[in-house]
């Protein structure tokens, strides 16, 4: 545990010094903050705009950080040979990999948490105002009749699920980093993420009723079976419509995310065990 902790802390500190990550965070906070003034673009749907920009930004920039941080995690260590002085200490490859993963994850989540705080600040001021106005005008997007506490609770759950989603994506990026150069790893990670956003679409493509041949059914079913279903972590629709997301549903999605992350990290471990450093 000591070795994992030390590697994770070193990874976290190193990551926070990367300028491109700092730039992404600053840009994300600016975008979220800009929603404060952009609400006039969609009169009557201000709340939807706030939520779309806020939660959308947290997910989008969280994704960029998770991928660009994760894909260089192992390949950089091997390329720069910093790994040699670490693996010759009493640190197993599994400990090293887990340390790098947790350090990277802590960076991603702390960045997302800061974006979340920025979103809450904007929402606390603007969001509650539009909810009151919307309730008075019967606007659909303002979820009339929904209490502020309810919507805040849903937002917290949505950000929590985004954390889980980025945990899975960080695992994908780390795994890719053990297998490919960082550019290939980035392409692979983005591919998995975007295909995973449309997992249900691939399930529907596998339906023989759509005229898909036997080979196509196998391919689409395989994609649906293997690819992490990232779309289940998106709660924006539920918040906007005021749908209650129960703790059982939330727990199931968190559990699913953790299972994905563990399985992906197992693949990463198997790849890293056999990789020459």
């Amino acid at each position, binding site marked *: 545990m*000591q070795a994992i902790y030390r590697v994770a802390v070193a990874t976290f500190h*190193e990551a926070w010094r990367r300028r491109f990550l700092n730039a992404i965070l600053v840009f994300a906070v600016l975008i979220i903050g800009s929603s404060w003034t952009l609400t006039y673009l969609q009169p009557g749907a201000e709340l939807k705009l706030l939520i779309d920009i806020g939660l959308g930004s947290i997910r989008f920039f969280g994704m960029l950080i998770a991928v660009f941080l994760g894909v260089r995690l192992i390949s950089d260590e091997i390329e720069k040979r910093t790994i040699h*002085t670490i693996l*010759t*200490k*009493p*640190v197993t490859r599994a400990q090293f990999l887990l340390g790098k993963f947790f350090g990277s994850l802590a960076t991603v989540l702390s960045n997302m948490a800061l974006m979340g705080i920025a979103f809450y600040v904007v929402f606390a001021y603007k969001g509650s105002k539009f909810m009151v106005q919307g309730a008075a005008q019967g606007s659909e997007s303002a979820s009339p009749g929904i209490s502020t506490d309810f919507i805040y609770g849903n937002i917290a759950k949505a950000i929590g699920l985004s954390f889980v989603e980025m945990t899975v994506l960080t695992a994908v990026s780390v795994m890719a980093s053990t297998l490919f150069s960082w550019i290939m790893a980035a392409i692979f990670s983005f591919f998995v993420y975007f295909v995973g956003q449309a997992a249900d679409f691939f399930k529907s493509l596998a339906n023989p009723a759509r005229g898909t041949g036997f080979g196509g059914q196998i391919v689409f079913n395989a994609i649906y079976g293997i690819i992490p279903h990232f779309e289940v972590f998106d709660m924006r629709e539920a918040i906007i419509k005021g749908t209650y997301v129960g703790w059982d549903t939330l727990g199931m999605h968190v559990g699913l995310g953790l299972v994905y992350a563990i399985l992906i990290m197992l693949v990463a471990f198997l790849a890293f065990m056999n990789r*020459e*450093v």
Partner: protein
Amino acid sequence: MDLSIEVEEGTIFGLVGPNGSGKTTTLKLLLGLIYPTAGSGTVFDLPLGSPEYKRRIGFLPEGPYFYDHLNAVELLAFYGGLFGMSGAALQDRIEELLHMVGMWDRREIRVRNYSRGMLQRIGLAQALINDPDLVFLDEPTAGLDPPAQMEMRRLMVDLRRQGKTVFLCSHLLKDMEPICDSVAILARGVVRRQGRIRDLLGAESGRFRLRVAGGNGFSLDSLRDRSLDLKIEGEEITMLFANQQQALAAAQEIADNGGTILELGAQTRSLEDVFIEAVAAGGDE
């Protein structure tokens, strides 16, 4: 392919070999960075790469790279932490090592601003953080200026004095010869020669070298017959004799005939000579 190397405890051992001889592969195997495709290896009766084994070794890589946002103290604290070291014991060890490698006054400088010499020094310090019994040093003097090379050699001799075993891997034979107690010469994955350095270099002891200029009235053919080797370069004649008596007799004969003795002494070989001979003897196998 079997590779057996004997290294005495508390000595400086050198593994030398031409490019592609398998030095790096051997070193990586010994460090547990790569795994053997077949078989296994042990050091201290411990399996290579096991955590127990790693607790007893230190490693300075060639052209070491470290997390460059850290300063010397933070870097050593990180490596010490990997051994479970913490608190005052770790701080004391860091201070001791930074004094030892001459980096105490520069402890606040971040690694990204280090010169090559400073990197080697801090690299040696991190290799010693756990007070290892066996230290692997890969090309420790490569790329250093002469004073830094001398300092690095002094540090290696100090380690031997402390009872540590130093395993040097280098192709800079002139750096290794004065400090190594024993060497193994590796070529194409096979140990060609191995032993104490004085035994390897002294294999031709007893031979004498004579260099003269000028003179006449002595027979060059006679000298050529009596010597092991005779070379003429302009005015100078260089000869190699099997023993001291033959060399002295030839020198006397040349001096009596007006020649000048430029050099007379025991023939010594360098590690480079032994190395070239051993590698050449391996042929193309």
